[in-house]
Every structure is written in structure tokens, then in C-alpha cells.
């Protein structure tokens, strides 16, 4: 077998891969051409990855929601239009959804911020040590220490949000299971109210730090520049 035959065989296998992939997950526009191109020439690498993505993609009725919010919306979907809806009213679901979106946005922002070298706690602490070692001015040292404190507070806030979100996710999962169980097995739905109360209390804690604080900004210093500067 010479090199041309080998290439022909490879491209033929690639064509079959592209066809299989197109059948499994039809795409349109630019994505379609990209899929065909990758499947044709890089099929040993692209085909398993693309197929795995197709296979693991869940049937998602709320594609833009976070995992926690999705669980909540699925819980509501389970009781929507049934007598159980009064246990999880639409208004409450919308309010919790709104809070969750805010928290997730804050979590993303904090993650991005804390990933920056300027907000690395280790680097900030080393900076303080360095300034102390060099006997830097008190002002510089105070600023550096304040920065360390701010970063620590941000990191603590981030960790607390993460923990509350994880707990909330667990409670919502239990709530969804209880509601589905109550709906299909006509079992007692007494526990649902307690779980819902737990969810609400956690959402309240998460939302409490999101409310606009009453910021009291200090007056900016007035600088009087000599006219010779201009």
C-alpha cells in the first residue's frame, strides 16, 4: 500500500465519520462545515469527542439556567398545573430564580477577579512581607495590609457563596424528588413545606449581601493646582 492509497483510505473513513456525526447531531451554517472538515481530516480525535458530547448532553428544557436554577425549574415543572403547585408557587420560583442568577453572576465575577495575580492572596501576603523586610514607608505597608484584608474578605465571601450554593443545590434536589414522589405516588407532601422553608432561608442569606449597600462615600479631596501647571 502506497501513501496515496493510505490517504484515500483515511479520507474515506473520515467521510463515513462525518456522515455518522451529521446523522447523530445535525448542524447548520458554519458549524456544519467545521464538523465535516474536522470529521474528514481529524476523525480519530474529533469523532470520539464529538460523539461523547452528543451522548452526554441531557434533554434540557432550561438551557440558559445554572445547575441549581435548573433543579428548581425542574421541580416547578413537576408540579405545574397540579394541586401541588401551591406548595411551590410560581411567584416564589421566579423570585428564587432571580436571586440565583444574581448569585451565579457574582460567583463568576468573583472567580474571575480572584484568578488574577493582583488578587492572589499568597502574592499579596508576600508583598507585605517584602515591604516589611525592606522597611518600606508606613503608608505603603498600610495599603498593602489593607489589600491583603480585602482579598481575604473577597475570598471568604466567595467560599461562603460556593458553600451556600452547594447546600441550596442539595435542598432543591431533595425538594424536586419529594414533589415528584408526591405527584406520582400520592404520598404525603408534608415534608415539602419544611424543605421549601430551608431553601427560602438560604436564598435570603445569599440575597442579603447582594442588596445595594448604603454607601457613604467620603468627599473627594479638592486639589488646588497652581496656574503655572497649565
Amino acid at each position, binding site marked *: 500500500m502506497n501513501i496515496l492509497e493510505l490517504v484515500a483510505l483515511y479520507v474515506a473513513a473520515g467521510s463515513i465519520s462525518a456522515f455518522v456525526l451529521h446523522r447523530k447531531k445535525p448542524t447548520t451554517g458554519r458549524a456544519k462545515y467545521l464538523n465535516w472538515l474536522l470529521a474528514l481530516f*481529524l*476523525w*480519530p*480525535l*474529533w469523532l*470520539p*469527542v*464529538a*460523539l*461523547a*458530547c452528543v451522548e*452526554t*448532553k441531557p434533554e434540557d428544557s432550561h438551557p440558559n439556567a445554572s445547575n441549581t436554577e435548573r433543579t428548581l425549574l425542574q421541580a416547578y415543572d413537576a408540579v405545574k398545573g397540579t394541586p401541588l403547585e401551591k406548595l411551590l408557587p410560581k411567584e416564589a420560583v421566579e423570585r428564587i430564580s432571580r436571586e440565583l442568577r444574581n448569585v451565579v453572576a457574582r460567583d463568576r465575577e468573583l472567580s474571575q477577579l480572584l*484568578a488574577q495575580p493582583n488578587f492572589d492572596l499568597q502574592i499579596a501576603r508576600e508583598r507585605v512581607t517584602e515591604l516589611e523586610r525592606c522597611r518600606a514607608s508606613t503608608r505603603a505597608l498600610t495599603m498593602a495590609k489593607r489589600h491583603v484584608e480585602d482579598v481575604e474578605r473577597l475570598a471568604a465571601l466567595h467560599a461562603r457563596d460556593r458553600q451556600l450554593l452547594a447546600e441550596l443545590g442539595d435542598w432543591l434536589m431533595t425538594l424536586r424528588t419529594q414533589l415528584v414522589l408526591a405527584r406520582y405516588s400520592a404520598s404525603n407532601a408534608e415534608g415539602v413545606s419544611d424543605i421549601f422553608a430551608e431553601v427560602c432561608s438560604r436564598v435570603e442569606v445569599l440575597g442579603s449581601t447582594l442588596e445595594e449597600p448604603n454607601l457613604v462615600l467620603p468627599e473627594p479631596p479638592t486639589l488646588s493646582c497652581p496656574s503655572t501647571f497649565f
Partner: protein
Amino acid sequence: MNGLQFELERLLRHPETITDPSRERQTDRHLFFATVLSILVGAGLFGMALATSRGGLQLLYSSIKMPFVCLITLAFVTPALAAISDVFHRTLTLANAAVLMLTAAARASLILLALAPVVWLAFDHGLSYHRGIIVACFCYGIAGLEALRIIKLAFGNSTRSFAIIGVFSLVLLPAGAQTAWLLRPYLGRPSQTEVPFLRGKESSFNQSVSRSLTSSVEYSE
């Protein structure tokens, strides 16, 4: 675009999260693009830096061929990694094997990208053809160590993991060497008047190595 940026950042800063088998699979598509992009840019620019010794068309040829060597080798050896892992009772799906190999190759390409200015500087200061090849081999060695580190991260430190990596090396090294051999030249011989895209087949990588060894032994005697 955000997904691609996120995966590029992950590749640069937290590659250990990629090798975690429990990661979110939905993002593998973006990860695939990020790794292929890193290979195209990293290996491509390193190839270009190697070709600065010759210049002209060789710059273009080397920048095209270098990433291709990497991708063709991966295409050949990835199924072997999945099979070898399975033999050693460490189940690795074909998708996970592909992601792992692409990540390792992408990190290696990024190392090559970092070394490209050094190679360029060396050639600019008159590094000869043969020494240039040795420098290139040294760079491949460093990049290979990073790829190995990524693979080791995925398999862990057990004896079984070392066995998998050892057996897989027996597949990867000859396959990679032969692919690179087929697509040479990357530097371009100074004596050649024209720049060929591919050199004549002449022999295989193994034959060439044994011939070079024999001639070096004869020369030393």
C-alpha cells in the same frame, strides 16, 4: 468564543482540571478547539523559528508541517492509548484518551512556542545546521517532558500507571519519529539550492538512526 477563551486559560493555568475524568463533558468541544489551536500556533511558530536558518519558502513549509506531525501522530496513537489502558484495567474511553493526548500535545506545543525565540536568536547568531538539529531535539525533549507530566497527572503514580505510560511510549515514540521523518525537512540543508516541501523517502527513521550510529562509530575509530 467565551468557551474557547475559558478552555485556553484552563490549558495555560490549570491543566490538571482537564485531566480529571469527572470533568464536565459538554465543554470538550471547546477544549478540542483550544488544544488544536494551541498545537497549530505553538508548533507552527516553533517550526518557523527552526526554518529561520534557511528562510524563504522553508518558513512556510516548516510552520505547516510541524503541527501536522503532531496531529497525525496523535491520530495514530490515541486509539492505542485507550486500548493499552484497557489491557491494564484502567478504563479510558476513546474520548478521554483523545482529550488527554490533545491536552498533552497542546502543552508541549506551548513549551515549544516559549522556546521559539531562543532558537530564533541562536540561528540569528550563526548556529550551524547540525548544531541546530541538536538544539531542536533538546527543545522537543523539554516539550515531551511536559506532555509526559500531563499524562502522568491523568494516570496517577501507581505501578500500573507507569506500566501504561511505558508500553504506550513504545507506540508513541516510533510513530512520532517516523511521522516526523516522513515530513522532513524542517531546517533545510544549507547545501540544497531549492527548498523541497518533502524530502525523498530514502529510508526509514530506524534505518537512518542505525546508519548514523554506524558511521559515528567508524569515524571515532
